[in-house]
């Protein structure tokens, strides 16, 4: 089935893949600061490179999630003619991305962590998102009743704009003037934003699984809705686990702690379904979207275990502010979010034919290289984090710079693993983009998107 929404979806997925490539290049360049002394004299400032890497990867996820939702909607809703809202939305994204990278290159900062660009560039991004909401409402109002993944998409889209707006409350002196509240809101926002795109991506994973298993009742089951509401509950209230040391109110810290512990339910469900997952994996192993979803499942188990442990304040005291947190962020971004997005790209790009291209050894090789390199990458960051955690708690304490020198071995492994990981991901992206541009996917032009 091909219609405007599916084409728009492909367009977003292709743009997202390009952002991933840009993000990987900046990520590798930024990592040089950790392993080469004097790197600052040869490279763009770390304060520019780091946000370039982070923003590009966030745009990979956000554009990819948008592409997934549009591609998924294409199976419910058809548009006969070009849609100016969708077209304007995409152009606003391009304006925002251009402005944001220009802002970083010129050192024109002013925003908060993860959104460090001049706040003016948040406007086209917000406008693009509002147009997305308009199109989404138009499409889903004809779907009755909503399967769980449509609920998840709606949740992600709505909560993203809420949290994104909340992200700029610091512009008002009332909020900025109270340091502890300001930081509480900042980390409430960061927790909700990642929760929002997770909802959009987990919804997509659900949608893909339903298509793979050819069982449309799953999306209406009690269990599916139960898991959705538990996820929503966590999106809303678990972010307090980021700020246990911040002297904010106890009810905020305890809410974060208690709600985070409900994630044991997700953990139990994954373990309970493990045997069934393995037999399904054997059945669908040669179908690439399934293979990437299976990889995401394994990374969910690894990262969820870590997240739950890190959410216990007594353990968080040792890991907070260390590279264990970075390992968790990288593990979820690459292991979960990116694997779901790759599954979606294999399903939706190139009319799905590449999804069955099991003779392509490059994809298989890149897939396994990605998983292995990511594991080494993740372990090296955790080891660096544990060493920093021990330093944080030690008395007397050696200087920070001496402690950092002691982490060089782990940073070296982290860099080499990152290089291998990036090479594998570039290979996958190039295969996907080639399929997008060469397989009769030119409907995009005919529909004037």
């Amino acid at each position, binding site marked *: 089935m091909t219609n405007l929404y599916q084409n728009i979806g492909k367009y977003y997925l292709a743009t997202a893949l390009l952002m991933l490539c840009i993000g990987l290049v900046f990520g590798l360049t930024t990592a040089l600061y950790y392993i080469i002394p004097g790197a600052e004299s040869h490279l763009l400032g770390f304060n520019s490179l780091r946000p370039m890497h982070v923003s590009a990867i966030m745009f990979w996820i956000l554009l990819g999630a948008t592409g997934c939702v549009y591609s998924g909607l294409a199976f419910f809703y058809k548009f006969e003619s070009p849609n100016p809202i969708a077209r304007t939305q995409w152009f606003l994204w391009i304006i925002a991305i251009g402005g944001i990278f220009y802002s970083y290159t010129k050192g024109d900062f002013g925003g908060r962590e993860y959104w460090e660009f001049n706040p003016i560039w948040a406007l086209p991004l917000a406008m693009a998102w509002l147009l997305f909401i308009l199109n989404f409402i138009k499409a889903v109002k004809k779907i009755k009743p909503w399967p769980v993944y449509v609920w998840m998409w709606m949740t992600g889209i709505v909560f993203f704009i809420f949290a994104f707006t909340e992200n700029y409350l*610091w512009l008002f002196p009332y909020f900025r003037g109270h*340091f502890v509240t300001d930081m509480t809101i900042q980390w409430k926002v960061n927790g909700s934003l990642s929760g929002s795109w997770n909802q959009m991506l987990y919804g997509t994973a659900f949608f893909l699984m339903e298509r793979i298993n050819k069982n449309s009742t799953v999306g209406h089951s009690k269990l599916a809705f139960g898991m959705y509401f538990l996820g929503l509950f966590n999106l809303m209230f678990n972010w307090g686990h980021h700020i246990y040391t911040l*002297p904010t109110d106890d009810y905020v810290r305890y809410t974060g702690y208690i709600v985070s512990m409900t994630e044991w339910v997700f953990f139990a469900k994954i373990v309970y379904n493990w045997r069934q997952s393995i037999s399904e994996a054997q059945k669908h192993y040669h179908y690439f979207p399934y293979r990437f979803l299976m990889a995401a499942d394994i990374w969910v188990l690894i990262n969820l275990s870590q997240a739950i442990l890190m959410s216990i304040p007594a353990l968080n005291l040792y890991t907070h502010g260390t590279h264990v947190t970075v390992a968790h962020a990288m593990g979820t971004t690459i292991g979960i979010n990116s694997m779901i997005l790759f599954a979606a790209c294999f399903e939706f790009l190139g009319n799905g034919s590449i999804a069955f291209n099991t003779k392509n050894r490059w994809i298989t090789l890149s897939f396994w290289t990605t998983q292995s390199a990511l594991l080494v990458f993740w372990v090296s960051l955790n080891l660096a984090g544990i060493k920093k955690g021990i330093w944080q708690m030690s008395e007397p304490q050696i200087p920070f710079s001496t402690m950092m020198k002691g982490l060089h071995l782990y940073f070296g492994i982290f860099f080499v693993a990152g290089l291998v990981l990036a090479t594998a991901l570039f290979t996958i992206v190039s295969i996907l983009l080639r399929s997008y541009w060469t397989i009769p996917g030119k409907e995009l032009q005919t529909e004037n998107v």
Partner: protein
Amino acid sequence: MPIISFHSAEFDYNMTLRPVHSFSFLSVVFLAFSLSIYLKPAFSLPTIDIAKPEASKGRLTWQKYNCQSCHQLYGLGGYLGPDLTNVYAAPNKGEPLIRAMLQIGIPPMPSFNLPEEEIALLVAFLKETNASGTADPRMFLILSNGMTQRK
């Protein structure tokens, strides 16, 4: 009544209202929770407030130079440099070190050549972050329920 209550795993049209109710209920609680946080500055004691204009402007200077890409406050931020929450009161550090680092830098931190006015704003900001609490994990106790509390 359970939050989600369906008669069977199979599709039932009547259940479509239930997710709407559950979603609305959770959203209202979430908004109330958010509001309780937004109202905090209005009901705070001035002693824990950093409403001093220099500190507030210093926060903007911190963002203008993207200090957060390398440094942390309360363990949140970058990993290339040290946490600066309590640098203002740290032994052998304090204002002289902050000023020296901002003026000349030590690799990998570049010299930012900041004007005196901006250095003063950053110092005021770091003075206030220090006054707000401690980010040193050694200063916390672990309670029997797993929660942590400042000693």
